[in-house]
C-alpha cells in the first residue's frame, strides 16, 4: 500500500464527500427488502433461500433485473458471485465494491446479508436519482454461499475471491444429498466466466446487521467495525473413572463432570479478564455414559475464545491450558485438548474505517466503534483490499432465526452511512 499523509487524504476526501443533506430513499430500500423476502419465504416470517437452490436463482434473477434497471452491467465470476457495475468517470480506476450476500440460513431472517446487498443497490439508485457521477466505478456485489448451511464452510465466494480457496475446492463441496457446489452452480445458471479474484478493488464496504445486542442495548444507531474477532476453537475430553453412583465413596471418585464444571467457570473468568472484547464459551457438554446413576467417566466439551488481538487470544489459550492442568491435578483426571480451528483476527483498513466513522458524524447518527463477533465476507476481502464494515442494530441481537428483526429507520441509517462512506471513497465528480 502506498504511504500517504493523513492530512492530504483527509482534504481530498472532504472535497469528494457527498453533502450531509444527501439521503438515500429508505422507503425504496425497505420495499426492496420485503420484495426479496417473498422469494424463498420461511415458515415463520423469515427467509429460506439456501445457496444454489432454485429460490437462490430467483433471488439472483430479481437482483439482476433491479441492477440492470438501475443501469448497471452485471458480471458473474466462476464461483457465481455477482458484480453489478455502475461506471465511473475514469473506467481505468479500480472500483469501490459494496455488498454482502443474498443467500440465507434455512430458517434465516430477511436482513442478514440482504440488507448489505440491497443497500449497495440503493446507493446506485440514489446516485442515479441525483445525477451524481463518481470518479471510480462502483460495484454492488452478491457473494455466493456466505452462510455455508448447505455447502460448508461458508463465505465461498469471498474467500475464493481473496485467494484463500481454489475454484476446485469450491466446486467439490457437497450438500447433504451429495450434490456438488459445481453442479448446482451450473444447474441454476450462475457459473460465470469471470475469473474469481485476481483483481484488487479500491476498497470494499459491507453493511450488516449486528447479530448481537450491543447497539440496541446502548441505543446507538451505527457500529463502526474496526476489527473482526480472531477465534480459537478447542475440543476437550476429561477422563476420570466411571463408577456406580451409589457404591463409590466420595473420596475415591474421579468425576469427570466436576472437572468440566470447573473449566466452564474458568473459561468465563478468562474472558472476563480481557474486557470488553473477549468472549469465551463452552457450548457443548456431553457426559459418558450419561446415565443418572453412573459417575461420569468422561466428558467431552468445546471451548471457543474470540478476541480482536492475536496476542491476547494466545494468552487466553495459555490461561486455559493452565486451568486444565490444575483441574486435572486437583480432581485426578486426565485431559485431551485439541485445537480444531484458528482464525486470525482481522483489523479493518484505517482509512475505510475513518470514512465510515466520518459518515456517521456527518449525518448526525450516534455511533460507536465495535468488533465483529461473527465472520463476514468482509473479513476475507480485507486480505486483498482496504475494507470496512458498518453495523446497524437488530432486535434482541437475534439472528440466524426467522424472528430476526430490524426497524426501517435502522436500515435507513445504516444505508446512509454506507452511501456516504462508499461515495466519498469513489470520489464525487463535481
Amino acid at each position, binding site marked *: 500500500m502506498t504511504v500517504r499523509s493523513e492530512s492530504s487524504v483527509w482534504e481530498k476526501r472532504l472535497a469528494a464527500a457527498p453533502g450531509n443533506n444527501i439521503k438515500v430513499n429508505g422507503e425504496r430500500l425497505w420495499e426492496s427488502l420485503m420484495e426479496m423476502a417473498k422469494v424463498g419465504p420461511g415458515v415463520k416470517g423469515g427467509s429460506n433461500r439456501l445457496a444454489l437452490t432454485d429460490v437462490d436463482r430467483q433471488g439472483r434473477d430479481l437482483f439482476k433485473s433491479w441492477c440492470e434497471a438501475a443501469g448497471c452491467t452485471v458480471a458473474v465470476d466462476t464461483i457465481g458471485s455477482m458484480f453489478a457495475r455502475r461506471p465511473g468517470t475514469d473506467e481505468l480506476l479500480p472500483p469501490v465494491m459494496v455488498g454482502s450476500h443474498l443467500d440465507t440460513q434455512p430458517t434465516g431472517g430477511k436482513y442478514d446479508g440482504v440488507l448489505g446487498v440491497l443497500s449497495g443497490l440503493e446507493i446506485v439508485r440514489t446516485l442515479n436519482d441525483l445525477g451524481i457521477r463518481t470518479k471510480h466505478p462502483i460495484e454492488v456485489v452478491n457473494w455466493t454461499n456466505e452462510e455455508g448451511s448447505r455447502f460448508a464452510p461458508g463465505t465461498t465466494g469471498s474467500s475464493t475471491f481473496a485467494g484463500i480457496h481454489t475454484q476446485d475446492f469450491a466446486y467439490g463441496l457437497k450438500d447433504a444429498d451429495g450434490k456438488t457446489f459445481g453442479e448446482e452452480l451450473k444447474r441454476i445458471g450462475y457459473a460465470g466466466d469471470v475469473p474469481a479474484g485476481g483483481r484488487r478493488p479500491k476498497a470494499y464496504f459491507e453493511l450488516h446487521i449486528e447479530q448481537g445486542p450491543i447497539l440496541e442495548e446502548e441505543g446507538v444507531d451505527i457500529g463502526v467495525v474496526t476489527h473482526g474477532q480472531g477465534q480459537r476453537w478447542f475440543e476437550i475430553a476429561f477422563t476420570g473413572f466411571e463408577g*456406580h453412583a451409589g457404591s463409590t465413596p466420595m473420596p475415591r471418585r474421579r468425576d469427570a463432570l466436576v472437572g468440566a464444571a470447573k473449566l466452564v*467457570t474458568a473459561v468465563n473468568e478468562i474472558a472476563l479478564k480481557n474486557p470488553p472484547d473477549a468472549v469465551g464459551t463452552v457450548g457443548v457438554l456431553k*457426559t459418558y455414559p450419561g446415565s443418572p446413576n453412573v459417575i461420569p467417566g468422561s466428558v467431552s466439551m468445546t471451548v471457543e475464545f474470540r478476541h480482536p488481538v492475536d496476542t491476547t487470544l494466545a494468552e487466553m489459550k495459555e490461561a486455559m491450558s493452565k486451568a486444565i492442568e490444575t483441574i486435572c491435578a486437583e480432581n485426578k483426571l486426565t485431559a485431551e485438548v485439541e485445537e480444531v480451528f484458528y482464525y486470525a483476527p482481522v483489523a479493518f483498513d484505517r482509512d475505510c474505517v475513518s470514512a465510515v466513522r466520518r459518515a456517521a458524524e456527518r449525518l448526525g447518527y450516534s455511533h460507536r466503534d465495535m468488533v465483529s463477533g461473527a465472520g463476514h465476507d468482509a473479513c476475507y476481502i480485507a486480505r486483498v483490499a482496504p475494507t470496512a464494515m458498518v453495523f446497524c442494530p437488530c432486535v434482541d441481537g437475534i439472528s440466524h432465526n426467522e424472528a430476526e428483526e430490524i426497524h426501517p429507520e435502522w436500515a435507513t441509517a445504516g444505508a446512509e452511512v454506507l452511501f456516504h462512506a462508499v461515495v466519498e471513497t469513489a470520489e464525487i465528480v463535481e
Partner: protein
Amino acid sequence: MAAPASNLRINADRLWDSIHEIAKIGPGVRSGSNRQTLTDADGEGRKLFQRWCDEAGLTMGVDQMGTMFARREGTNPDALPVYVGSHLDTQPTGGRYDGVLGVLGGLELVRTLNDLNVKTKHPIVVVNWTNEEGTRFAPAMLASGVFAGVIDQDWAYERKDAEGKTFGDELKRIGWRGEEEVGARKMHAFFELHIEQGPILEAEDKLIGVVTHGQGLRWIQCTVTGKESHTGSTPMKMRRNAGRGLAQITELVHEIAMSKQPNAVGAIGHIDVYPNSRNIIPGKVVFTVDFRSHVLETLTGMVDRLLAEAPKLCQALGVEFEAEIVGQFDPPAFDETCVKAVRSAAERLGYPHRDIVSGAGHDACWVNRVAPTAMVMCPCVDGLSHNEDEDISKEWAEAGANVLFHAVVETAEIVE
C-alpha cells in the same frame, strides 16, 4: 445351641465350579455374562439351577413373577422358612458374580447341610428373584418389588423391552410363569450374599461387609434456563448462559456431598445441553442430581440445601432454576437380629469384617419391607461391577458363603 459350630464350612470348590458352570450359559463377549432377564439364556440358566436344586432334594415353587423358590424341609412343618438368595439375571455386559454368587451361595449351603446330614427346625428356601437388573425391563428389582407389595403386578407385566415385547409375554414364552400368588409366602427371615460392587472392603483388607443399611436415594431433575445466543456477538456481560448454572450446581452438589462425609454421596451423571452447539451459548440445560445416604436426615438435608442454594446461584447468573424430585427411596435399615447373626458368623469364623452400607439397590432392600432381612458382602476387585471385567477371588466367595451359611443356619436353628 442353634448356631453351627465354627468348624463347619461350605465346599468352596463346588461353589466356584457351579459359578463357572452357569457362566457358560449366556456368556459375554469378554469372559463376563450376558444373561438378560427372560431371554432364552435366562431360561437355560433357570433350568440348570432347577436341576441342581432337584439333585439336592429341594422342592421348587415358582410364582407368577417367575421367581423360583427351592425348599429344603425343616423338622417343624409349622415354622416359617428362612429364605436365602439373590438373582441369576445379568447386565448385557455383566459379570459372573453379581447376583449369581448369592443364589449359588444359597444352594451351596443346602448342599453342605445335606453332606453333613444336618437338619434345621425351619425350612430353608433358596430364591432366584426375577429381573433384578432392570436393564431389559426397567425398573430394577422388579419381582422382589412386587413380592414386597411396592410394585403392582399388572404394571410389571406391561413393562416393555426396547423391541416392544412385554415382561408378561416374555415370562410366558420362556415357560417360567408360575401359578403361585406373588408375596403370599411368609418369611422367618431373608439373607442375601452379594459382591460389594464398591471398593471399600478390598481397600481395607476386609473379607466381610456386614450390611446394616441400604442407601436412601433422591433424584432431583433440574432445569436451568437462560437465553440461546451467538457466542461471537454476545458480550460476556449480556449473556444468560445456562451452562454456567450447570457448572456451579455441579460443584455445589459435590461440595454438599463432601460436607456430609462419610455418610453421603452425590453426583450428576446425566446432562442434556440445548442446543449443544459450539457457537451457541447454552440456552437450557436439563440434568439429574443423584444424592444418596443411609441416614434419612442427611439425605433430606442435602436436598434441602440444594433447593435453597441452587436458585440463588442461578439468580446471580441471570438464569432460571426449576427442580423436581423424580425418584426417591428412603434408606432401609436391616433387621437388627439378622444383622447380628451375620456379624457373629463373621466373628465365629475369624474373618476380618466391618459394618457397611449398601450403595447399590438389592432385592434385599425390598424384601426388608416384609421380612426381617440382612445382607452379607464380599469384596470385588477395584469395586468394578456391571462390567464384564468384574472379578472376585475364590477365597472371597468362600468367606462370603461361609458367613451366609452360618447366619442362615443359626436363624433356621440346627436340630441336634
